[in-house]
């Protein structure tokens, strides 16, 4: 019974999206947990944004605020650093996750830290910070309830906002019972109180608190962090040292810019007008203050973002404010769950950002794993044209690997001379009216010979049988009769 409840749907080590998806699709529990959760999140978003005029104009405004910040990104990053430094925050820059981890380790070692408590941070997931710190004898514990559950079960988050959304209460009950020795209960309140009790002790003991950042305000040197649980507040105010880690794209110009973005973020993500807590952190404890961290650090991580930034079209990827609405509305994500992507960021945004973070060579199937239905682009609060960007990545993915001026790491990871030849044939067929009509003639006349098996198509479908006569023929006859 226990084992049944806790079989992870996918092999976590696998980065093979198709393989993972195949396994996930066969996991009935996962499928029903995900469908139920995504349906609810979609309904909540719509209920929180009922006014179409306000919603659509605010999305446009959110897009403009983010685009304005990106259009001045280097200048704003320098301004952010200057203002944070003036406020007493130490700012670090890292091009790679290795550099970022080294910075965190250096801070930890300077404080002889043994325990790190973490608020929710997707960038720290990019860094695999927990694993890295544990390798150096430092315990790194997640404190977001969902992240904590995932960490206990040695899994990866399935969603950027709701990391354990693929699990139901029964599965969590088994997990807490098995790993924490708690009496078995499926009562969610009691399960949460267990988490609270365990983690409160950890907040108390921790030497360092780590958090992410939702918006970094250049104007005032302020790190804004949204959350419902209070673990973000705990992580950033109780331990003597606070390390915030974030991507270089998270900066906005002015404090007022967070007003539309905050409203878009919480309503798109959870259907909440605001989260329980909005933390605005502008510096460490001042000399006369009685609490708060003595030191605050900010690590600004590139990790492939500057690659996306270099191309005006792909730069739009960096508009993202990490609300997760694209996942909640994605028919693919809903069916395979987040872990099947094998990337830190799953779902539609994951498919367009991961190729920059990891290279197309490590995400070769991600751009193709979409029907381009457009549900993601329709709800994105900052109007990232996700389907267009997926199509663009497909284009980069089938270029010759050695084609000049690559815009992507891993360009051409799906380059196939055979497939290219097929498309060249397709082009010839469709640009030569004579050839096209001849093809149509034979396809219709020989329709009895349509093979019963047509590769992957007939996995889900009967083989399509052409009609007896093409529209070209029918139309010619019909119009000639007139």
């Amino acid at each position: 019974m226990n084992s049944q409840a806790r079989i992870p749907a996918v092999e976590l080590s696998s980065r093979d999206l198709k393989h993972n998806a195949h396994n996930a699709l066969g996991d009935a529990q996962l499928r029903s947990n995900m469908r139920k959760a995504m349906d609810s999140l979609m309904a909540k978003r719509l209920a929180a944004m009922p006014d179409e005029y306000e919603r659509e104009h605010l999305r446009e405004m959110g897009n403009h605020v983010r685009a304005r910040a990106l259009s001045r990104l280097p200048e704003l990053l320098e301004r952010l650093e200057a203002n944070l430094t003036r406020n007493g925050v130490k700012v670090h820059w890292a091009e790679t996750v290795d550099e970022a981890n080294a910075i965190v380790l250096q801070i930890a070692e300077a404080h002889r830290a043994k325990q790190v408590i973490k608020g929710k941070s997707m960038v720290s997931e990019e860094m695999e910070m927990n694993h890295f710190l544990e390798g150096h004898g430092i315990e790194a514990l997640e404190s977001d309830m969902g992240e904590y559950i995932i960490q206990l079960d040695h899994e990866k988050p399935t969603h950027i906002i709701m990391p354990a959304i693929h699990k139901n209460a029964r599965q969590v009950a088994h997990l807490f019972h098995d790993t924490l020795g708690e009496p078995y209960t499926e009562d969610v309140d009691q399960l949460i109180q267990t988490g609270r009790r365990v983690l409160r002790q950890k907040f108390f003991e921790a030497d360092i608190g780590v958090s992410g950042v939702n918006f970094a305000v250049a104007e005032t040197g302020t790190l804004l962090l949204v959350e419902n649980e209070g673990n973000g507040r705990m992580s950033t105010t109780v331990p003597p040292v606070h390390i915030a880690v974030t991507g270089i794209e998270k900066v906005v110009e002015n404090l007022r810019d967070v007003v539309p973005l905050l409203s878009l973020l919480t309503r798109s993500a959870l259907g909440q007008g605001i989260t329980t807590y909005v933390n605005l952190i502008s510096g460490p404890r001042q000399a006369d203050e009685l609490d708060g961290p003595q030191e605050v650090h900010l690590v600004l991580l590139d990790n492939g973002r500057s690659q996306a930034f270099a191309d005006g079209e792909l730069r739009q990827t960096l508009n993202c404010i990490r609300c997760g609405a694209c996942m909640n509305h994605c028919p693919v994500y809903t069916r395979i769950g987040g872990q099947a992507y094998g990337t830190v960021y799953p779902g539609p945004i994951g498919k367009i950002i991961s190729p920059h973070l990891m290279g197309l060579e490590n995400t070769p199937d991600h751009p193709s794993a979409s029907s381009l239905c457009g549900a993601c682009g329709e709800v994105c609060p900052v109007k990232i044209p996700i389907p267009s960007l997926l199509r663009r990545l497909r284009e980069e993915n089938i270029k010759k690997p050695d084609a000049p001026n690559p815009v992507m790491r891993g360009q051409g990871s799906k380059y196939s001379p055979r497939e290219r030849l097929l498309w060249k044939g397709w082009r010839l067929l469709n640009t030569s009216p004579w050839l096209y009509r001849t093809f149509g003639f034979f396809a219709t006349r020989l329709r009895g010979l349509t093979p019963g098996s047509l590769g992957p198509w007939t996995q889900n479908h009967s083989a399509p049988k052409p009609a007896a006569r093409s529209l070209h023929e029918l139309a010619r006859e019909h119009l000639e009769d007139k």
Partner: protein
Amino acid sequence: MMSAKANILAKLRKSLEGTQPIADDYDVALVTRPWSYPAEERIPRLRQLMEAVHTETHLTTTADWPALLEKLLADKQLPSLLIAPATAHGAQLAAHFAGREGLPRLKAYDRPVEEWKAELFDDTPASLTGTLGAIAATGSLILWPTREEPRLMSLVPPVHFALLKASEIHDNFLEVQQKQQWAAGMPTNALLVSGPSKTADIEQVLAYGAHGPKDLIVLILEDA
């Protein structure tokens, strides 16, 4: 070897060569007009939103709130209350409690947290703080912790009482930023608090009291 900072900035600058910054077309009306309320609607809206997420709210007055708080403490059987004695409201409550027997003990947050962290975590069931106002649009309290009233007061104790002056309930976040001139100088830690701590991380079932206070009780001073 160039530093990471220099490398990153050089790449970003190169990527922007020959381009123009996007103009600032910030639409003030869009983020304020849908979130503006007649004066008489602000308190009801704030209460409705906050109560919807399990906040307890009470209407009271500048003179009466200490007695109300005394009663609430008794109802909730809270043995002690953490206060900030150097604040006006801390002093007012202390005066109300002074010389009376059988009341919950008032504890003062008057020394660095390191000196009494265990007591704060394990033996401080409730706290009282002021607020810098509230936001009617989202049902949020504004807190700027100070030396006198430190940040952990509103976080660690499981029950948090907050005083709110009715005249300081603003319509929306942008209005607050402008009226209170946030951009001119931010404190080390500013907060919007919109209810007791909660989570929906298990099967989207809402549970209160995740890591922060389990109960948030707002005393609205109608005459202040």
